[in-house]
């Protein structure tokens, strides 16, 4: 097995196609491990990992923690809400204090884009970006591609549309990089106000008509409207957004082929996707969650193997 080309996972932008394949192959093994009666391996028993969440998260934090524990790492959790960050401590000071307690790896979510990159230049530990503002969320993109590969056999040559709030989405950006690295075609679809102005320079197609976008694609990745990141109104009302960009069963039934529906969660049922669609066989939303643990185990394992 070869090694990752990087010592940190800061974003898909910083890794290559070989890294992605290595992560997927390793995740295949871990997927088998987490389906055993005893789901734990002792590989990382001498590694300590700090999960630093400066922003709220349920799914990602649980997924990382489970991945770390199934690799037998020691885990410390930190959330900004109950920490000295509120007392005015800087990011580097907070992290250095934690590292002084001999932590080998940091999994960090932060509201500011580039927080992981900044930290990687100042501290001596492996860093996994678990989401930095509207920048990147690499493990989510990896598990999304892994889930497509599992369902459709391959990512190369597939057409994937990312629907919804592209402007505020780190999932969208990481997915665009990851899918393109693997040879998939990417389209973004949503109200013009929620599509970044220069997105086409990344080589993606832009479509504002949902029906046309769904007709084009093999996979639709539905994003949540991130109201918490919006300081102004980007569309008239949630009801209007749903009418134009909500995926319903009848919309899917009228397409010429069966497409795969994905969602990174949390779902706003009845807004970007109806319950009927979310719970249908076309949706692989819960597969994504299960694959998330295997992918994160693979990323942590591969990065940890580079800590000497």
């Amino acid at each position, binding site marked *: *097995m070869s*090694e990752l080309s990087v010592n940190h996972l800061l974003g898909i932008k910083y890794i290559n196609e070989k890294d992605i394949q290595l992560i997927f192959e390793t995740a295949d093994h871990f997927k088998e*491990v987490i389906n055993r009666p005893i789901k734990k391996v002792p590989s990382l028993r001498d590694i300590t990992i700090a999960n630093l969440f400066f922003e709220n998260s349920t799914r990602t934090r649980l997924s990382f923690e489970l991945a770390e524990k199934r690799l037998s790492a020691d885990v410390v959790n930190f959330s900004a809400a109950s920490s000295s960050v509120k007392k005015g401590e800087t990011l580097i000071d907070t992290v250095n204090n934690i590292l002084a307690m001999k932590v080998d790896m940091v999994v960090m979510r932060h509201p500011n884009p580039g927080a992981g990159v900044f930290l990687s230049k100042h501290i001596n530990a492996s860093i996994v970006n678990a989401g930095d503002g509207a920048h990147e969320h690499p493990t989510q993109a990896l598990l999304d591609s892994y889930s497509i590969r599992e369902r459709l056999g391959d990512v190369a040559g597939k057409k994937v549309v990312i629907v919804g709030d592209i402007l505020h989405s780190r999932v969208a950006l990481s997915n665009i990089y990851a899918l393109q690295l693997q040879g998939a075609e990417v389209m973004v679809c949503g109200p013009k106000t929620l599509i970044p102005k220069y997105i086409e320079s990344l080589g993606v197609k832009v479509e504002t008509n949902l029906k046309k976008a769904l007709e084009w694609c093999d996979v639709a990745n539905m994003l949540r409207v991130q109201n918490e990141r919006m300081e102004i109104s980007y569309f008239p009302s949630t009801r209007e957004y749903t009418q134009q960009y909500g995926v319903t069963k009848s919309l899917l039934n009228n397409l010429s082929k069966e497409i795969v529906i994905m969602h990174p969660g949390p779902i706003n049922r009845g807004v970007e996707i109806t319950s009927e669609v979310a719970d249908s066989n076309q949706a692989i939303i819960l597969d994504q969650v299960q694959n998330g643990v295997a992918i994160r185990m693979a990323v942590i394992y591969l990065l940890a193997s580079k800590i000497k």
Partner: protein
Amino acid sequence: MSQKVLLTGKEVNIILHRLACQLIENHTHFKETVLVGLQPRGSFVAERLKQILIEKYGIENLKLGLLDITFFRDDFRRSSQPLEANKTTIDFVVEDKRVVFIDDVLYTGRSIRAALTAIQSFGRPAEVELLTLIDRRFSRHLPIQPNYRGRQVDAINEERVKVNWKENAGEDVVYLIK
């Protein structure tokens, strides 16, 4: 670097038949016994033994699984080469079963130590035995000995024992490489 033949294809075949007979002697119908080949190289020995047991000795319902021990090894982050994982295929429960580990070369015993931990993920076996084609005695780091051995070899640490199979190298032969 020089290499000398330790066992020819014919000798390997005779030894495999003997080992198969020894297994039958202890496990008769293999009703409560499962064979577990240790990945990657033990799988070749295990598949051959399975073939002999079924075709020559008419053993029915023989269960064979392949166990990968990569994530249970004790040299993670200590080895200069990245550890390469292989597929585990154990589609039966080992709870209360008599497990026979099968590997090609027993050297330090560390792989077997890892396998003993790894197999527990699939249940608590009634007992575990070890079958190995080559036993490099005097090289053990741990108190582990085989129950069934093909050939005992006195090789020094600088030497390497390499087992080739028709399936992966075109011929059955065991080399001692200096």
